[in-house]
């Protein structure tokens, strides 16, 4: 979902980039691929897996694309011209120990080591890649040698694709262009291999996939967001995001989606749900105060409970490469409709304003 695509991302202006505006016309599998005419795009996978010995891990493989230059290349331009940047964030959380491992990759699109198909989902850079096979399964590979782990996962879809927002357009601000196209497949069955500190183990679990693209998403005054994607035990999924103003209040453009067990979905407006912080964790590294416990309620769907991080120390410091610091980790919802998924908290250590 909305993540962090901060990637050196300064306000480039919208000149030349296509804005996402309704009505949106999408066609898959083409729209699983890259949309090089819009400025920002990401493919976001989060999940939880369990090894045969019972060890549980949260994992994240995200590939961001940031458009740098929308103009047509000149006749004598090098194909290495940096027109788009790709970045990957790969993270693994050992739920028991609470240890987070994380690596980043960054390259220019099109140099042979960073690629993004425009006809289907086939995107990657260096040793991180997400590929969709013709049957719809995802092949996810992510190396993180310097962090001591590597993932080789196959994801089989357990739910159909969902377009978030009204008419498939996720409106995030008052301006007509403050929007993104936001597609998800909210539940996948995961199997594969996790190599950890030299040992290889088979893992199984579930995952969530977001693909979002847009040019100018955030409205004025928004400095960050809180997001969660939860797979409920009853077969439903819930996605909520709370766009946060500088004064801490929630933007009226905060929204969500409820996906029913049969795959049908319902758009949720800000008034349809409660997503409020109840407890915090302070990062010893950045001193940022993250709300890692939340009260969640969607009264119309019978959902109410406490969402809590399964490990507090999930701050990802990307200042050396992407310039952003955010929190991303597995979380558990307890209450009337329990479930689990991922929680993302941005804009607490560094403002996301002007980046999206």
């Amino acid at each position, binding site marked *: 979902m909305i993540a962090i695509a901060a990637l*050196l991302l300064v306000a480039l202006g919208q000149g030349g980039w296509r804005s996402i505006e309704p009505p949106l016309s999408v066609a898959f599998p083409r729209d699983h691929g890259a949309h090089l005419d819009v400025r920002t795009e990401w493919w976001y996978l989060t999940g939880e897996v369990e090894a045969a010995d019972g060890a549980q891990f949260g994992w994240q493989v995200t590939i961001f694309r940031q458009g740098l230059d929308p103009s047509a290349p000149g006749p004598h*331009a090098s194909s*290495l011209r940096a027109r788009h940047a790709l970045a990957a964030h790969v993270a693994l959380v050992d739920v028991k120990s609470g240890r987070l491992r994380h690596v980043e990759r960054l*390259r220019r699109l099109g140099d042979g080591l960073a690629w993004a198909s425009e006809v289907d989902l086939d995107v990657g850079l260096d040793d991180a890649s997400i590929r969709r096979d013709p049957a719809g399964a995802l092949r996810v590979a992510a190396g993180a040698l310097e962090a001591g782990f590597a993932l080789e996962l196959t994801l089989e879809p357990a739910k159909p694709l969902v377009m978030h927002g009204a008419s498939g357009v996720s409106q995030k601000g008052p301006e007509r262009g403050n929007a993104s196209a936001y597609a998800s497949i909210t539940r996948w069955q995961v199997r594969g291999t996790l190599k950890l500190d030299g040992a290889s183990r088979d893992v199984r679990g579930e995952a969530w996939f977001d693909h979002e693209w847009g040019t100018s998403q955030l409205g004025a005054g928004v400095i960050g967001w809180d997001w969660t994607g939860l797979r409920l035990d009853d077969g439903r999924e819930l996605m909520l995001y709370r766009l946060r103003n500088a004064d801490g209040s929630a933007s009226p453009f905060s929204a969500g989606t409820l996906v029913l067990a049969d795959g049908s979905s319902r758009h949720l407006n800000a008034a349809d749900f409660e997503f409020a912080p109840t407890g915090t964790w302070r990062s010893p590294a950045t001193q940022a105060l993250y709300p890692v416990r939340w009260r969640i309620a969607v009264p119309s769907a019978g959902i109410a409970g406490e969402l809590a991080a399964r490990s507090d120390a999930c701050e990802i410091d990307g*200042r050396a490469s992407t310039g*952003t610091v955010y929190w991303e980790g597995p979380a558990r919802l307890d209450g009337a409709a329990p479930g689990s998924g991922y929680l993302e908290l941005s804009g607490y250590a560094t403002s996301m304003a002007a980046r999206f």
Partner: protein
Amino acid sequence: MILRALFLRPIRRAPLRFLVTVVGVAAGVAAVVATLASSRAAVAALQEGVAELSGRAVLEVRAPGGLADSVLGDLVPLAHAAILVPIVEEVALSPRTRTPVRLFGVDAFVDASVRGVAPAFAARAGNEDDDHFLEFVRGDGAWIGAGLARDLSLERGGTLELDVRARPVALRVLGVLPSGRGAAFDHLVLVDVALAQELVGRIGRLDRIEIVPRVAGADLDELRERALALVPRGAAVVAPAQRGADARGLVRSLEFNLTALSGISLFVGAVLVATTLATSVVQRARTLALLRSLGASAGQVRVAILVEAGTIGVLGGVAGTALGFVGARTLLPQMRATVATVLPAAPQSAIRFAWDHAATGVLLGVAVALLAAWLPVVEGARTPPIQALRGEAPARLSQRERRIALGVAGFFALMAVELVQLPAWDGLPVAALLGTLCCLGVLFAVLGPAVDALGALAGRVSRLPVSLRLACAALASGRRRAAWAAGAVGVAVTLSISIAAMVHSFRQTVIAWSDQSLRADFTIRPLTTRDGLPIGRLDPEVLAVAERVVGAQALDPYHAVEALHAGESVTVTAADFGLAARRGGPQLTDRTDPLAAIARAHAARGALVNEAFARRFDVEQGDRIRLEVGGHALERRIEGVFRDYGDSRGIVTIERDDFLSYFPNDAPRQVSVHLLDDADRAALRTALESALAARFQVEVLSNVELRTQVLSVFDRTFAITTALQGVSALVAVIAVLSVLYALVAERRADLATIAAVGGDRLQLAAVVVGQAAGLGLLGAATGALTGVVVGVILVSVVNVQSFGWTIDFHQPWRLLATTVGGVVLACAVAGLLPARATDPRRLADALREEAA
């Protein structure tokens, strides 16, 4: 007591003599240290530059002619273990300073973790570095080295003007790299890799791909093996340091030969020490004899002389080392210019004090002084007690001694003949240079009999003025000292004559080669540096513009790329064999008709190779060679071996169409223009210049101008040898002075007797000046003969073994005569100084002392 009598007291009495000897050793040591330090600074900068610019990269993929940038994609399977970094590099010209600068194309997306070139590249939220990063990766301009910024008074926002591929380019200065990153960064122009490709006209090509392990302690062999399995044929996976070693290899022979030449200065210094000590021993024969009578053993006398020699060595070594580091600063620009003829834009590092060079200097000083003390030690220990000394008189060499001396000379001559026939040792002409030392051995061995002969001759020629006869007799009676002094002069003259012969021969050969090979009416090439070196290549558009002015049939572009033969780097060039057949080809080493060889190569897609290639790989006409170039394998038959003095690694020339089928986008280094006989050359030159000047930074040289430039680069390359000749000459003059002072002191009684019987000051001075001139004549004559022989060895053996090309021997006879005359004159003039000691009044005192 012995030390005080033999060492300290003489120093107190004649501090100047001691000082002069120390200075002589110091001068020799200084020459060696200066050469070592300056060549290290110039050459080691190449390696340091590679290390600095490579950052954390431990391996790199490279291939002759570069790599397609698609190779990056082939390396995806390696990306989990290593960061892969594309590099494009080119030498450009800064037109304002006329100096070469290195245009370095990097990928800032991954570069921060490799080189950390600009900390500003690490984009940080909310700070302006984001802008810096984006404008860099978008190719909006360049970051430049601190030295370049200083030289051009540039800062962020300024405009950097460059000539790249002979095209003027203006780059916005996005930032100045922090200073203190090393010499390699000081004059760097850092641009985005894509911009670099566009600027240098190598779209789709990379110079190399660096491999930076993601974790420390990675298994490099495994990484190399895995990379090798992924890269195209002909590409190598090697450590970056290999590039530095390759660069150093290009100038290795040059460095070695310069150090060897500087060593000759040290040899002259050794002769000086020997002369001084021998003189001192003979001078103090009475003291030695007295000490022996009082019970001093021969061993004690030896120790005393060795202590004196050691002291001279230590002092001379220390002073020489200090002088050497100072002198290195003077030599460095010349050394850099020499290196730049092979590798332009090499980083410029300053002279740095190096303990190993300092130790080498001091040890050399001591070793040379102790070695030189060997004969004086033998002489001193042989000094009989005073009773036996009485009545001892100078004597001519006995028949046996003369035979021994000539036998030693013969032995050295035979050794020299044997040594110069041995092959190079590890590519270096070590044996041949030892052979030249043997020639110097011959010189010394014959000098004793020669001095004797001079004395005998003077005795027989009755018409000689009395002063000259006395001078010759004095020299003969002080034969050993005279021989040493003449030897010092002889070594200096040998050095001077032989180097002059080598340089002159090379120059004459280059002139002859130019006549044969440089036939174009005009040559179009990129603008040159201050040192006259053309930088970079020509934009292919230059060819199109020239075609419009003079027609395509008149143009002969010169293309060159790097290739591998038998795993070694060589150069592949292109020639229009059809045009060459009409215009005349290069001179072949076997003196056969070049046109026939060109016709064969034209007909059968063959190749011509230069002499250096043929020697390096031991191939000849008719052999087949296989080259790896740009991912292709070329197999060609050698149709001829041509003379060439531009590339000692080896050149293979193939037909231009053949070449362009492999390198369709290669930019030529220069373009030769061949006009019809009746063409209006002046008008066409003006037309060419005005058509090109609007868009390109090129120069159009006439045939004469090009040849003049070639010779001027040649002269600059050999300028450094002049400095070495100068040092040797200085040491030799010091040796002559030292001996003359000693002889005057020793012959004071004789001179006083002459004064007592009516000799005036002029006559006395004539005796001394005559001795000096005699020494000079002996040294110069034997030195000239030896110099000619050593010159032949340098030209025919050392040069061939070092560079692989043949040069014809040309002795500059006029220079030889001038040198001999000049040396004799210089020695005679030098004799005026000790002649001042022949004041009759002071001599009278001496006579009184003698009588007492």
